């Protein structure tokens, strides 16, 4: 009885091994396939890493100005400045020509300066810069929007700096008059009658200084002294006020205008221990997508080719049952893809220097689950399609869906919820998130994602098992 049981168990494993050895022989008999599957993705990532420049397009820009001489001078000065990612190639009054050059791709951006800017400001109205572009790529349009926002900010800042500079000049005038007033105050204090004929500046402060004087007087009187104070006290107070005002005006004049108009700037700090280069960022996503695609394609072609080449008939007549066949296929592809992942990851880690900050065991577990779920989907396709070409088409549809919905290049929050359902069906979505966490952030992946993957893998295995069982007994 026990011997019979063991005999049964041994035969079970031998039958499963039939598929392991078959896939091993199939793969090893096609060295080119192996090379394409490992070296292909590696070389693509290597080429990407070597060729990717983390730079942005410099926009060739023309500024169209209204035919007002005073504006032209400001714009010329503006155009002479170095602005990041902007190359002012032309300042012109010919809008039509500028737009023609934009259409002809000789320009990337046209900035139209509005008319009557001073009048608008006086009337409390904003003036509008009109920008024209011809981009079709949404990312490039976003980039242009960032650049024109920067350009507008720059123009506003220039105006602010000019205003501050004007205020400083005015402040310097006030300061001179404050000095004059202070001298007059001192002379008065010493009981010395001012000689209006010899020192007209002192005797006759200009209108601004007079306003300033009375303003100062009223302020000091209200703030520091009760209205009933004596004339002496008043005099001391005015003197102190003049000194304070002088000091504040000096301070204002000495201040950097650019700091005054933009007192804040930013600096960005990452908590990452290592520098994540752009190619490094894409590696986990590419790896997840690649694992999904290879697993899905191999599995999708597997049963369908057995069905249509007739091997399925041999299996039907043999003692191997649906459970053994599907388990054997899962195991053989999982082992093959495990070896493939290890080799590919070794190349990426040692040759490309891709960081691996997290736990290797989590990486292996996440990769295995992505492979198992992808195999499940592949076998499901294989169990239902009617030809090899249908299987290939389905796996291509899966790949296309993964590129758009897995977070490969669009973040999931950018998708509306029905599309996010598609995202969470794709194993690559889970793979990208978990592999990025493990490899680049060095943290434990979200375990709920791994549990969901495990659940999907089990559900798909059962589904494929039942379906294959039905296929083995034809109706």
């Amino acid at each position: 009885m026990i011997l019979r049981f063991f005999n049964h168990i041994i035969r079970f494993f031998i039958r499963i091994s039939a598929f392991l050895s078959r896939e091993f022989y199939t793969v090893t008999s096609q060295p080119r396939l192996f090379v394409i599957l490992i070296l292909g993705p590696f070389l693509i990532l290597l080429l990407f890493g070597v060729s990717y420049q983390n730079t942005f397009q410099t926009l060739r820009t023309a500024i169209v100005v209204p035919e007002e001489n005073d504006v032209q001078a400001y714009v010329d000065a503006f155009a002479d400045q170095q602005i990041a990612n902007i190359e002012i190639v032309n300042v012109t009054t010919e809008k039509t020509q500028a737009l023609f050059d934009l259409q002809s791709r000789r320009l990337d951006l046209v900035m139209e300066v509005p008319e009557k800017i001073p009048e608008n400001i006086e009337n409390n109205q904003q003036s509008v810069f009109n920008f024209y572009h011809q981009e079709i790529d949404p990312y490039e349009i976003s980039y242009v929007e960032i650049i024109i926002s920067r350009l507008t900010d720059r123009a506003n800042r220039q105006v602010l700096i000019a205003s501050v500079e004007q205020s400083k000049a005015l402040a310097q005038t006030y300061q001179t008059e404050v000095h004059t007033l202070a001298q007059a105050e001192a002379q008065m204090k010493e009981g010395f009658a001012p000689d209006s004929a010899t020192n007209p500046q002192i005797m006759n402060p200009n209108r601004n200084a007079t306003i300033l004087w009375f303003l100062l007087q009223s302020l000091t009187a209200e703030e520091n002294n009760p209205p009933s104070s004596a004339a002496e006290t008043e005099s001391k107070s005015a003197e102190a006020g003049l000194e304070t005002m002088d000091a504040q005006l000096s301070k204002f004049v000495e201040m950097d205008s650019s700091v005054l108009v933009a007192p804040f700037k930013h600096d960005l700090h990452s908590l990452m221990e290592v520098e994540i280069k752009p190619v490094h960022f894409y590696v986990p996503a590419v790896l997840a997508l690649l694992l999904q695609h290879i697993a899905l394609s191999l599995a999708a072609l597997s049963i369908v080719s057995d069905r249509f080449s007739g091997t399925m008939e041999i299996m039907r007549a043999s003692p191997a049952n649906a459970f053994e066949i599907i388990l054997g296929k899962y195991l053989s592809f999982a082992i093959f893809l495990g070896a493939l992942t290890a080799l590919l990851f070794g190349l990426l880690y040692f040759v490309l220097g891709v960081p691996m900050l997290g736990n290797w065991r989590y990486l292996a577990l996440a990769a295995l689950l992505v492979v198992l779920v992808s195999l499940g989907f592949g076998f499901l396709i294989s169990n239902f399609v009617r030809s090899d070409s249908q299987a290939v088409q389905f796996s291509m549809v899966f790949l296309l869906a993964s590129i758009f919905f897995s977070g490969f290049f669009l973040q999931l929050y950018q998708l509306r919820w029905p599309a996010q359902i598609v995202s969470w069906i794709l194993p690559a979505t889970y793979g990208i998130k978990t592999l990025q966490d493990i490899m680049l952030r060095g943290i434990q992946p979200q375990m709920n994602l791994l549990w969901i993957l495990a659940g999907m893998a089990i559900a798909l295995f059962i589904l494929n098992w039942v379906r294959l069982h039905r296929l083995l007994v034809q109706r």
Partner: protein
Amino acid sequence: MAVDSRSWESKTNWLIETEQLTKKFNGEFGVKEVSIRIPKNAIFGFIGPSGSGKTTTVRLLLGIYPPSSGSALVFGHQPHRFSQTDRSRIGYMPQLFMLQNGLTVWQNLAFVASLYGMLRHRKERIRKRLDLVELTGQEKKRASDLSGGMQRRLSLAAALLHDPDLIFLDEPTAGIDPVLRRKFWDHFQKLKEQGKTLFITTQYVAEAAYCDYVGVMSQGRLLMVETPENLKRIGMGGEIIEIKFTDLLSQAQVAAIRQQADVAAGQIQLLNNEMLQVVVEDASRQIPSLLQWCQENEISVKAAQKIEPSFDDVFVQLINRYRDDS
């Protein structure tokens, strides 16, 4: 109470037993009301024109198709409910090459050996089967690089690899040269002597001679199951005697022979004016009486002998007769 339908076991000694076995595909009959009984330790030949339902019958007996109606028992069990043990006792060579083109000869046989759970003496058995099908030396050749005949031989080796008790061979000799074909049949005889049962479909009607029983299929129906000898008799309507005359026969002499009470009407064929063939019930009894009649009628006979018709002729006769009847 749960009833194991596989326990519907045959009480007879028939290894294969079918009753009104029918298979329909989209309302069309693939096989219609086939009833066969095949004993153990026999070679059962299954002949019939292309599309007559031979392969469908094989698939029904293998459990690949469940029957639409009727019943089949193999080893006393319903084929579509076979246990793994039942399946491991059966060898099957499909009509077309269905092994892996990308694998070598050896790898294909190793795959089949594993499918059947073979552990012991694998290499030895593979070598023996390769020897039998004359593929020794071709082990490392890919199946896709083999000729059609070699692929058939590889399929045969795979079917016999696990030493099954019951072997279904669907046209095993198609595309095989006559010398090797003869060798195959010798081996099939040896397998039978070892106690195996073989179910062989073939389009080479002459191969029916090697079988213990022959079933004739046409248009999904089993026309008959007979021994090869009976098949000839039924096909030709009796036994054939060929008579050669010394002189040319006149029309009157031929008419006189036709009127002979012992000769079945319409069963005389004049091959030329000095030779004719006569179909009779029993050649051994009829030859002396015919010779005597000729002597009495002064017709000089050079030679008279019983002729063995070819199975091709028998088969054509049978199929034509069935078509005429239907």
